[in-house]
């Protein structure tokens, strides 16, 4: 097996001896050894990898492969006979309007999450990073929502949005802003955004920490130089701070997109995809198809779609980051 450099997949620093590993012979059962490898080392490596590899093979790799298999078969549920149906499930999925709706909602969901959670994380990081005495206090306080399980966040915000007793509508009414009260979760035009606010409230804290770490990495002498040149605070932000954050920003955006793609718990708890599928995401629709309608074939097609989206986002951002770090 000749090793090819795979562009775009360098999430982490490349392996130490990449060129030495290239051009080696195949791995055979029992760890038979190619000339360049110490047989003792190979044996030890296999033993050290074994626990992780066994678990990972059974509970991750096998299911990944089986998902493809499921997508070509029809099955009426768990533990029932299935039969090969070719591309029928793919055709049925493409013809299902709720699939397209949930795909559209997922894309909106990603954008909302990046803007709300990423934006708030950046804004707070910029505000906090200059503080000396109170920085730790504010950082700790702003991070608190991130510690709460998204399912619990769903319960919390379902109550906040409760039309009669919820914090939002009652607070607005008491402040004389009764005109702004809404059916936050019952209005089809509003529901996806409302639920996303709950998820983003939970999510922004981590992005804020990452931005703070990014700000600390900016060379301080750049600010001194800008000050000598008489730059205003705004100019320092635009010409020093934001360019210095470019790498961490791409990282946060990719992380927020992947987190958004995995979004499930808040929607499941708060609306279960409703009303009228107006907050259905790909993940919640997978759950509905797989565990409620028992339609595994179509659920598997959606699983593959979800994986492809995740892979696409990862590849695009790795390319982008590789270009930035050059």
């Amino acid at each position, binding site marked *: 097996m000749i090793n090819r450099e795979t562009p775009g997949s360098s999430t982490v620093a490349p392996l130490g001896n990449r060129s030495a590993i290239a051009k080696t012979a195949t791995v055979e059962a029992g760890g038979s050894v190619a000339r360049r490898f110490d047989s003792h080392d190979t044996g030890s490596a296999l033993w050290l990898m074994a626990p992780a590899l066994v678990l990972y093979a059974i509970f991750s790799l096998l299911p990944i492969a089986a998902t493809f298999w499921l997508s070509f078969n029809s099955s009426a549920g768990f533990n029932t006979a299935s039969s090969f149906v070719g591309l029928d499930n793919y055709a049925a999925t493409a013809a299902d309007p709720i699939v397209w709706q949930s795909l559209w909602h997922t894309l909106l969901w990603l954008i909302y999450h990046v803007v709300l959670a990423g934006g708030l994380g950046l804004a707070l990081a910029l505000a906090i990073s200059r503080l000396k005495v109170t920085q730790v206090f504010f950082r700790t*306080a702003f991070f608190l929502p991130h510690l709460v399980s998204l399912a619990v966040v769903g319960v919390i*915000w379902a109550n906040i949005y409760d039309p009669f007793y919820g914090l939002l509508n009652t607070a607005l009414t008491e402040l004389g802003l009764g005109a702004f009260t809404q059916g936050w979760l019952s209005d089809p035009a509003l529901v996806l955004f409302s639920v996303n606010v709950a998820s983003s409230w939970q999510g922004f804290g981590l992005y804020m*920490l990452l931005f703070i770490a990014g700000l600390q990495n900016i060379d301080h002498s750049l600010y001194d130089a800008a000050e000598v040149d008489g730059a205003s605070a705004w100019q320092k932000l635009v010409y020093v701070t934001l360019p210095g954050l470019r790498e961490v920003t791409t990282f946060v955006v990719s992380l927020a997109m992947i987190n958004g793609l995995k979004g499930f718990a808040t929607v499941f708890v708060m609306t279960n995809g409703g009303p009228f599928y107006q907050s259905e995401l790909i993940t919640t629709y997978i759950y509905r198809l797989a565990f409620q309608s028992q339609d595994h074939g179509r659920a598997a097609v959606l699983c593959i779609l979800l994986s492809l989206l995740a892979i696409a986002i990862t590849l695009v951002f790795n390319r982008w980051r590789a270009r930035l770090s050059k």
Partner: protein
Amino acid sequence: MSTRHREWPVALGLAPVMLLILAPFAWLIVSSLKTEAEIGQADPYAWPADLMWRNYQDAWQIGGFGELVGNSLLNLAGVVLLTLLTCAPAGYALAKIRFPGREWLFYTFILGLTIPVQAIVIPLYQVLFGLNLVNTLSGIVLAQVSSGIPFGIFLMRSFFISVPDELIEAAKIDGASHLQILTKVLLPISTPAIQALVIISALSTWNDFFLPLIVLISPEVQTLPLGLVRFASTYASEYRLVFSGTVISFLPVIILYILMQRRFTEGLTQGAIKG
């Protein structure tokens, strides 16, 4: 720097933002101490006449929170322990031992890092069912460890790579095996990486909802987030119980975090960047 004089104006400006962001917690805690009638008045600024600590007793008993917390703790201990036991050796092998297929394995784990667990959930359920692990804590532990393995391995690997080879060569000359190098030389200096891995896997296990929802069916084996969601939908009309149950679910972690916030912050930041 000359920015010191900006401290208090900025802090003052941030205070209302903080109140707004933390308002959900404050509102829940205050409301959880109200009577059902007081909640019915729908005035979020009103203080309860008497602090109804009874709400907590009732919620704790009716919701079976003792059992839920116990299950969550067992779940967390199992995942953290197994994650360390699997990821530290594998990360070491990938970082410091040359063996055939290393590159190939590396990309296999990248695949797992990218694909969300929701995308493999149907066969995952079937595998657990086949192994008689559905509705058991062992089942949820194994599934969660496996889905966390790629991240854990990358985290440990990227830390071990930064350790100079000379350290390992020296131990080898002294006749140490790879296992000894890992346990006697590397792990003692790996506190930052281990701390990050423990905090991240503990927090994500404690808060996980999707896998428990699939795997843990009966109430006796359920974990805290899943149990709370079930409780909140069963007693949806009794706000005082839902509110106090919710506070029970988030308060312990928040207190723990405030006590150890520096470690949490370091661990989460390092983990997110390195993994």
